[in-house]
């Protein structure tokens, strides 16, 4: 009897959980907001997108983006609006500029350097083999 009572409680207690917040009236706008905010970083919890973050600031910013979109602003204008306030940090894809050049091209530079070193080492060893071959 007691067991069944606990099961009953488990099922009914979910009713007490908070209701989901209603979406904005316009589903097309919500879809646009979702797509765009997945490309943007929440500044409060920095490894979360603006779409997924539950921080109050993220909620405010989503509201702000909704407002801008209703005013007919393009995605680029919305992104520029946020970058002007919070910097390139809000972008999950950092732009290529002087500051991020090392980030974008550093790995390729390292790859070239590694390739060069490998080439030198292999060439040297190939030389060793030849000398040994002559000795034999």
């Amino acid at each position, binding site marked *: 009897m007691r067991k069944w009572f606990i099961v009953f409680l488990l099922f009914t207690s979910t009713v007490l959980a908070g209701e989901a917040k209603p979406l904005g009236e316009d589903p097309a706008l919500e879809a646009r907001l979702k797509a765009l905010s997945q490309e943007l970083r929440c500044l409060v919890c920095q490894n979360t997108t603006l779409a997924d973050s539950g921080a109050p*600031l993220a909620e405010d*910013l989503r509201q702000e983006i909704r407002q801008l979109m209703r005013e007919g602003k393009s995605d680029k204008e919305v992104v520029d609006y946020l*970058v002007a*306030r*919070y910097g*390139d*940090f809000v972008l999950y894809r950092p732009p290529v500029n002087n500051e991020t050049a090392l980030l974008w091209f550093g790995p390729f530079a390292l790859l070239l350097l590694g390739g060069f070193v490998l080439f030198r080492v292999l060439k040297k060893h190939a030389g060793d083999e030849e000398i040994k071959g002559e000795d034999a």
Partner: protein
Amino acid sequence: MAKFLIPLALFLIAVGFLFKGLYLDPHEVPSPLVGKPAPVFTAPVLGDASKNFNSADMKGQVWLLNVWASWCGACRDEHPVLMAMAKSGQINTYGLDYKDTDAEAQAVLDANGNPYKAIATDMNGKIGIDYGVYGVPETYVIDKAGVIRYKQIGPITDEILLTKIVPLLKELAR
């Protein structure tokens, strides 16, 4: 000899980067607003909603805009430093009460003292968004022309006050 020195040099460079990394705070995001005109805003004054604070009226003086809230724990840590700044009489500190209620903000000021010349209220956080606020406390140093010259993210400590803010204010006062 070179065979031994090159890896050592590379290792030391890597150590240098990692060591520097230890002292970088990823929560400090450099503000693109430094060097740009401070966003102009008008907002009701805390404690006297009939009055408005207009940031455009601050033209011609160097001032600090300190963003705070009664719910913000780090603001309590910063509070004594702000009080000392107010006591010196040398620094114009204005507050922006961010996403707060008048009653709670007033209660904190009544209990701990009020270091501000005036406090503007930003109950829905719109002014905060214009200033790129993402965590309180934050402090902006604004020059006579209304340009943001420095942004402090997180509480002002005695060290930051003495090494960064005071020298900057001296330079801007000229």
